Structures are given as C-alpha cells and as structure tokens.
C-alpha cells in the first residue's frame, strides 16, 4: 500500500438528531400554561417549605410534594448573573446565539430566596449590571407555552 494513503485519517462529520416529545406533566404544564394564557409566573411549594421555580414535583429538601401554587414576580431582584462571551449552539435548535449576552438568576418578588428564576437579561451596558438590581419580566406578545414566552428580564430604571 502506498505510504501517502496510509496517512489519510478518515473522519465522518454529521449532525445527529432525534425528534422528541417532551411531556410537561401537570406541574410544569400549568406553569407554562400560565405564561401562555395569563403572563403569570407561578411557583409551587410544599406546605411550609420554600418555593420551587421552575416548579417541580417534589421539594428535594423536605421530600414533600409541592402542591401549593404561588404567583410570583413579574418583578424581582438580581441574585447573580453571567455575561457570556462564548457562543455555543442551542442543542434544541442547533442555532448559535450572538454574544455577549447575559444570563441571570432573579429572586422574584414573593418567591423568597430559595428559588431564583434562571433567564436572560437584556441590559444595554453589561458592564453596569450589578447584583441586587431590580428587574422585570418582559413577555412576548406571541407566546407558545414555553420558557421563552418570557423574552427576557429588563432592568427597572430608578426614578
């Protein structure tokens, strides 16, 4: 066998994709329906426990079912945030987002401190974002019953 052929190393490049049907179950289902129908952010909690947001079936700390619904937000306080400079593909769409963008953890009013909501923050100057800033959820006009029905959070300008 000629040597030049030995050198070729074969690679197979492909996008692997499997269509999925993700069930919401009753709890996430109600959370998403409230975003869709009422622009309301709803958390759940087990009796006497912290809020869970996004809502989940069970409070991992108490191992009790989260059965009480609590309306929270749409305003809240930035607990933490990240300014992202690294572009990566969204594995649900394969699309890559423009950078920089900001992701934030928001303690929504009424949710207490155990359940910051994880979302995007729209701020004109990432350098001026600080923990503790007040923010508000901005809903899309066209909604589909998904987390992205909240387009992002925006900073409430101090007056």
């Amino acid at each position, binding site marked *: 066998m000629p040597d030049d052929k030995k050198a070729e190393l074969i690679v197979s490049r492909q996008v692997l994709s499997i269509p999925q049907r*993700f069930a919401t*179950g009753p709890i996430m289902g109600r959370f998403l329906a409230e975003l869709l129908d009422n622009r309301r952010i709803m958390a759940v909690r087990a009796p006497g426990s912290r809020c869970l947001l996004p809502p989940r*079936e069970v409070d991992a700390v108490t191992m009790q079912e989260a059965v009480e619904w609590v309306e929270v937000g749409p305003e809240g306080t930035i607990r933490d945030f990240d300014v992202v400079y690294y572009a990566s593909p969204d594995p649900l769409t394969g699309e890559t987002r423009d950078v920089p963008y900001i992701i934030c953890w928001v303690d929504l009013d009424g949710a207490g401190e155990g359940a910051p909501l994880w979302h995007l923050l729209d701020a004109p100057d990432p350098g001026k974002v600080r923990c503790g800033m007040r923010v508000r959820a901005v809903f899309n006009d066209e909604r589909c019953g998904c987390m992205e029905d909240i387009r992002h959070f925006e900073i409430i300008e101090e007056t």
Partner: protein
Amino acid sequence: MTSRVAICAVAQTKYEADKWDVRMQGMVWEVVKQVRAQTGLDFGDDGIEAAVTVSDDVFDARTISDSAVTDVVGAHFRGEEKVASDGAQGVYYAVATILSGKHDVVLLAGHCKESQAASRNMVTHLAFDPFFTRPVGLDYLAAAALQADAYMRKTGVTEDQLADVVVRSRQWAAKNPVARDATPLTRDDVLASPMLADPIRESFMYPITDGAVAMILASEERARDITDRPVWVTGLGNCYDSFFLGERDLAGNFALERAAARAYCMAGIKNPVTAFDVVELCDQCAHQMPQWAEGLGLCAAGGGAVWLAEGGPDCHSVNRSGGMLAGNPLMLGGMARVAEAVLQLRGDAGARQAQGAKRALAHGCCGPAGQLQVAVVLEA
C-alpha cells in the same frame, strides 16, 4: 455470599404506550412514594441511605439524566449512582453496595420513556459504531432479526411456536395489572401482524413502553426490621459477549451461560432444570423465550424447540407477568423481571401467583441481540 441482601419492597408504574401526561420525574416519584409507603422508611442515616438509579442519556435526550431525578430519589446531599444499563445491572450494583458494607439500605429506581423519542430504533441505532455497522442501518431490531434467523435455523423453532409464545404472553398479561398490553391474541392474529424484519413480526417484538420501577434493598440485619417478607438475592452473575454480530454464535448463549453459571455457583444451584419455582426472562422478542431458556439451563443447548413443544414455559412457570413481550421499556426489562420475581416470592402476584414459590430466577439483557446478560437468583 457470606451475608445476604434482601429486596424489601418493589413498585412498578403501570406500563403504558405513551405516558404523555407525566414527566420522567413524575414516573419515578410515583414508584418511590410506593416503596417508601410499603416500608415506612424515610431518607437519612437511619433510613434510605443512598440511591442507585437506572436510566439512559440517549433515551432521556439528556446528559447526566440522573440529575433530573436526584430530587425524587431523595439524593439531595446524599449519594446517588446511576447504572446506565439494563435495570438488572442496577440490582447487581445495589446488592454490591450493601454486601461491601458501605450501605445498609439502598433505594433502586429506574425509568425509561421510550415514547419520548421519535422511534426506539433511532436510539438503539446509535449503539453501533460509526463506520462499520451504523452505515448499513443496524439497530437492536435488525440485530434481533439476524439472531432470530440464526436461532430458528439452528433449533427448528417454528413461526407457529413463536406465535404461541406471544399468545401465552397476552394470556398472562391479562392477569398482571401493570402489564402494558393484555389484548388477547390468537395464533392467527399474531401471524397476521406485519413483518418488520424477517422472521420478526410486529407482535413478536416487545412494544414501545414507558414506565418506572423502584425497589428497596437492605442488608440482612436491617431487612428483618423493614419487612416480615424479605426476598433474598442469593445469586448474581453477568457477562459480556463480542460486539460484532458476525463474531458471536448468534444462535447460542455464550454470555448468558456464563452469567447464569456465576449466579448458580453463588446460590449453590446444581440443576437449574428443577431449581426454580418461577422464572422471569427478558423476551424482548419471541424467539428469545426459548433461546434464553437454553442459556439459563432450563433445557439443553439447542433444545428450545422441544422445550416449547413440551410446554416448557408452563412447566417452569416462565413469565407469568406476561414477560417483556407484554411491554416493559428497554432499560427496565431485567428490573421488571426482578420485581415480578419478588412479587411471586412474597405471594403478592395475585391471579398469576405460582403457589408456594420459594425460589425464582430473573434474567436481564442489554445491547444488540443480548450482548450483555444478567442472571439473578432470588429466594423467599
């Protein structure tokens, strides 16, 4: 084994074609709640100390799919280790964590939602290597078809016999409240079902299924406090065969014979033909009922056709649950077998109860055409 491990509680969801109204977390929580209720155990050093979970990232479309269920298996600030293989392997590992002395009480919880992916075949296709076996379109169904072809040619098992295996599965499934598919079928119905991959017809193949299983396992010392009807795991064995289908004896039982031999050696079983009151084997496909029966030593190697003809499945009380053919998700095939064996040994099997069952054999398998085989011996 110098010491023994007991299964103290089991719970299964109803197996269904499409649990569209529940997340995987919800399925797991349903069975975790049940085993907690059965035992009265809470999580913590005096109760359930740690969890072993069973799931698969590709089926769940999720990296580290156990992170999705850490909450519902009580593993917040506790241990949780995921076996990404057939659920019988989860039993194997949970037993090891107790025999080692590391834990006394362990929760084992498995889930699989086959309906979530567009097709199960798209998932199992990805088990094949990218250059030699994926391009020709192999998946576990095609692999099972090549195995069935080899097995039927070698042993003379007929299509009618396989149809009867399916008919029998449905008859038993009608007595199992959690079975996915208990619609009665006649031999003609089965033989009228469309051919998927010769010689496998649609009704020869286990149906797409969603479900979850949970168990609580405990050391001998603790088991007595938890339940007055412990079921002891007295033998365990597993074994891998080669990957490339052409390099295996597809009609044989290289891995299963070794897995069973290990389990029987541990349990002190000399003659498997007479050793078991109940047998649950993982018949993902109808031909595997006689094939695995050979591998488990219920009949002679190559004797599957005769075994079927002589009523072997009834003589050995095989798959009174309806078996895998009645519908369990792939990842939980062996775990559901163990669960059913436990119900039988506890006398909780209702209309399908094998009277006075004292010793059971449960079998699990995994990979293309059963590349990995697991055998578990359980005793009342």
